């Protein structure tokens, strides 16, 4: 037991590792992802899109696996797969019942196809495993540019559509009456989520994308109902989870996803406890 704990929480040489360029790239990638995912998370939670995000990440995995097989950039493959998924799911709008089943169908097919594609791939096994559980060691400078570019696009678009999107997400009937183009915003937001998901897949892995796109938003919703405070708190949780997970994973040499998911989960538990202690979601 102590052995295992010792392996998991091991800081031997962490300091030296932090000085290495590829580790710094990884930290930068984590920071960018944390910012974007944290901003999106409360909206994903508010729109009840958790399952859609999971489905999107599986399709990003399919795209990445196909890219690996074809020998093109994994990031590009993930983005293509995720955006296709996002457009399909976004077109489904807010009718939850229909949405759930369609997402389930597409997700299962995408995951199966991805596994098949990985099976055909004869390259390094760590590349395969990395797509499912994440491996930021592979984040190089070109990936950083893609990540940064997508972050600018996602945050820039959100800056323009944020208020109508919040309106459409929380109060759809009145938003329609007030002329908000709800049907346009739904696929647009789905694409933004897809892009973020696609970037998260190589870092935290397809299986654990939810740990940065859902948990921070769900945790924040437990302690505040202010959209602004919820966003700030979600960003903080996502950053702590991703950066903390990266640092903790260095010395043990394990994949970061377990660390990220654990930190995010602990933050969620803490927020639940705080929310409960206050008796209710407190004003403000």
């Amino acid at each position: 037991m102590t052995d295992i704990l010792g392996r998991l929480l091991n800081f031997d040489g962490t300091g030296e590792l932090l000085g290495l360029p590829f580790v710094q790239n990884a930290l930068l990638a984590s920071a960018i992802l944390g910012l974007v995912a944290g901003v999106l998370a409360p909206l994903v939670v508010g729109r009840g899109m958790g399952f859609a995000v999971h489905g999107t990440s599986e399709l990003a995995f399919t795209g990445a696996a196909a890219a690996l097989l074809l020998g093109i950039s994994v990031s590009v493959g993930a983005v293509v797969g995720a955006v296709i998924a996002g457009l399909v799911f976004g077109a489904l709008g807010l009718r939850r019942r229909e949405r759930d089943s369609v997402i389930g169908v597409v997700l299962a097919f995408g995951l199966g196809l991805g596994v098949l594609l990985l099976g055909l791939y004869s390259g390094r096994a760590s590349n395969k495993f990395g797509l499912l559980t994440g491996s930021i060691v592979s984040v190089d400078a070109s990936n950083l540019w893609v990540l940064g570019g997508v972050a600018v696009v996602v945050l820039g678009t959100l800056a323009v559509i944020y208020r109508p999107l919040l309106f459409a997400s929380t109060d759809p009937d009145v938003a329609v009456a007030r002329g908000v183009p709800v049907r346009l915003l739904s696929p647009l937001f789905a694409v933004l989520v897809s892009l973020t998901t696609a970037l998260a897949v190589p870092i935290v892995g397809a299986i654990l994308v939810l740990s940065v796109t859902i948990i921070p938003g769900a945790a924040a919703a437990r302690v505040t109902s202010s959209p602004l405070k919820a966003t700030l708190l979600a960003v903080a949780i996502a950053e702590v989870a991703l950066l903390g997970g990266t640092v903790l994973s260095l010395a043990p040499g394990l994949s970061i996803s377990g660390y990220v998911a654990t930190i995010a989960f602990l933050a969620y538990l803490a927020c639940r406890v705080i929310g409960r202690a206050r008796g209710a979601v407190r004003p403000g």
Partner: protein
Amino acid sequence: MTALVPAAGDAGATTTMGSVSIPGPAPSVSLRDARIRFGERVLWDGLDLDVRPGEFVAVLGPNGSGKTTLLRVLLGLQPLDSGTVLVDGHPARRGSGRIGYIPQQQGMPEDLPLRAADLVGLGLDGHRFGPGFGLGLAGRRERRERVAAALAAVGATSYASSPVGRLSGGEQQRLRVAQALVGDPAVLLCDEPLLSLDLAHQRTVTDLVDARRRTADTAVVFVTHEINPVLPLVDRVLYLVDGRFRIGAPDEVMTSETLSELYRTDVEVLRTRGRLVVVGAEHAQDHHHHEAHA
């Protein structure tokens, strides 16, 4: 308000006001020869309706008679098949800032990430893309002040920062009124806002709407299947039944004779203790799910 002859409309013989100029303020809502059709089915045709500033018009009729469609036309969400529609002097358009809208009360999830003041604020600039009131301090202060004033006007200041999902149905509906009025509309459209509210809260909402139209001359178009809660406020009734309609004061429209004509069956309107009870309309149209107790 100048006295104005109500436009009396009927599918067969329509008395239009045509181009006769009427003294007094320009109407807040003006429909001329309006027609809506879904496939083969004509919802209404030849509808002429002027709603004056400060006037309260109740829209009644069974389900499927086109009450909500009328609101959608005024909101610019549904184009007319023919005729014209003006709101505050301009053709109806999507996202008009001159319209406030109150929906029917429906429960909001407890964990909805929105406070009362946020809900009201969305009524002010939620439809605007970009920075809205601007990122500057002056713009933000103006926004905050207008939201605070709207909350105060409906007596909701004490729960301004409470999560909307944790408020009672009555409190939520007060916020709906504030959300609709915060943009200072010329026309207030209400779509069954009293549904699923108890009598005390119905009274609160109708009193707030009434106060608004008296103090700010806001025209009110109030879709409801139950006229009694608003009967004291109603200036005119638009009663729609299966393509036929009648417009006039409640005393003229809510009679056994008129409703029998509209429903094409024997309908009796009873007046008891200041309330109207309509008997017979329930069976008039078996092909509709029916709730026409006016």
